[in-house]
């Protein structure tokens, strides 16, 4: 992965439940991404298979996965500003 200047990168925080599925993943990382879609691409490139866990084949963010950008629930089209903080979280679900 080409390193971009720090000011073009965004911070991503992953949920521990996702990390258990990808044992070499990291809780916090920075990636170069202009949108949530770019961010998902970056995660997939680093940990193959992660896209399928976060997005369905429509494609869209899975119903019970929340991706928050600057405190707002995002879609794949949500733009990311340099330095943005992105939180990937598991929503209330299950049984």
């Amino acid at each position, binding site marked *: 992965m080409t390193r971009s200047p720090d000011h073009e990168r965004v911070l991503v925080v992953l949920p521990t*439940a*996702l990390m*258990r*599925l990808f044992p070499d993943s990291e809780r916090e990382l920075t990636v170069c991404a202009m949108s949530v879609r770019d961010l998902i691409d970056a995660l997939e490139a680093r940990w*193959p*298979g992660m896209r*399928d*866990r*976060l997005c*369905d*084949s*429509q*494609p869209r963010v*899975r119903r*019970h*996965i929340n991706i928050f950008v600057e405190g707002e629930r995002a879609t794949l089209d949500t733009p990311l500003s340099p330095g943005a903080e992105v939180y990937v979280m*598991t*929503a209330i*679900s*299950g*049984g």
Partner: protein
Amino acid sequence: MPTRVFILLGTKKGAFTLESDEARRSWALRGPFCETWPMNHVIADPATATIYAGGGNEWFGPAVWKSADLGQTWTHSSDGLAYQAGEQAIKSVWSLGCRDGRVYAGVEPAGLFGSDDQGQSWTHVAGLRAHPTTPKWQPGGAGLILHSIVTHPRDPDQIWVGISAAGVFHTADGGQTWAPRNTGTRCDYLPEAERYPEFGQCVHCLVMAPNQPDLLYQQNHCGMYRSQDGGQNWQSIEAGLPSSFGFPAVPHPRDPSTLFLVPLNGDIAGRYVPDGKAAVWRTRDGGARWQAMRDGLPQENAFFGVLRQAMAADRLDPAGVYAGTNTGTLFASADEGERWTTIAQHLPPILSVETLVVDA
């Protein structure tokens, strides 16, 4: 090294294994595996002892998990396990099958996928959903699920699938084209004049007699059936059973005329064992006569059911039979159903039971 006998469980909270030796008297339980995802079906490829577990998680979607070391370590993949962009997303994997190293996965909404690389990647067997009846397929109580995958012992191009509630479909060309195989199976939930349609039956479980591809059995929402021509025609064999409703059907590993069932009290009567008394019902003559096997099973206040993939036989002689309940109890018989013992309790609802025998 002695023979190792494994029972593989899919449950609402992960996969489990139980291990014993050939005597099958005591069992060691391990699990839950697969991060406690709901696992609809856990099978083993007998040629390689690789374990596959299919399911789906509310948060992270569908996947097939795999263990090449008898459950100690697991990986997962859903690479290719998807319909075209814009189509309905796959919710979960419902059933697995394998033949000569090729692994099949049946999914919800109903469709079939295949893998030629031990579950690393999947390809849609698109001919099934291209069938002209597909837009009219209706879901059963568990959704529109492909839950039974039956392969041919000699012809790799022949596959039968069971879909709730679309019925049985068969391909003779490796999945390119499919035909309904439901003649003679009834739909009590349709108006009387329309009870024997070409498709739309609520098949619950479809199995093949050992090494006899013409001899199929199916437990249906509405009756118990046998076919002697590969599913082209079905005959009722429910006379003598306490109910026409149940989920699993388990063939004997060697005898084509022996079958095990767990009839329940009815589709809108609670779906538990009749009168609260548990029995596995066995035929030795292809369904002409049925015998209730009760020794060791609870005979009062039993209000559980056994789901469609939650009973199995092993390949030992005499064959072991195993039934897992939707209340988390696992019953086992080491003598073809004559006597039963409880070998696990307090598990999550059991969704599937399969076996693996590993020789020295």
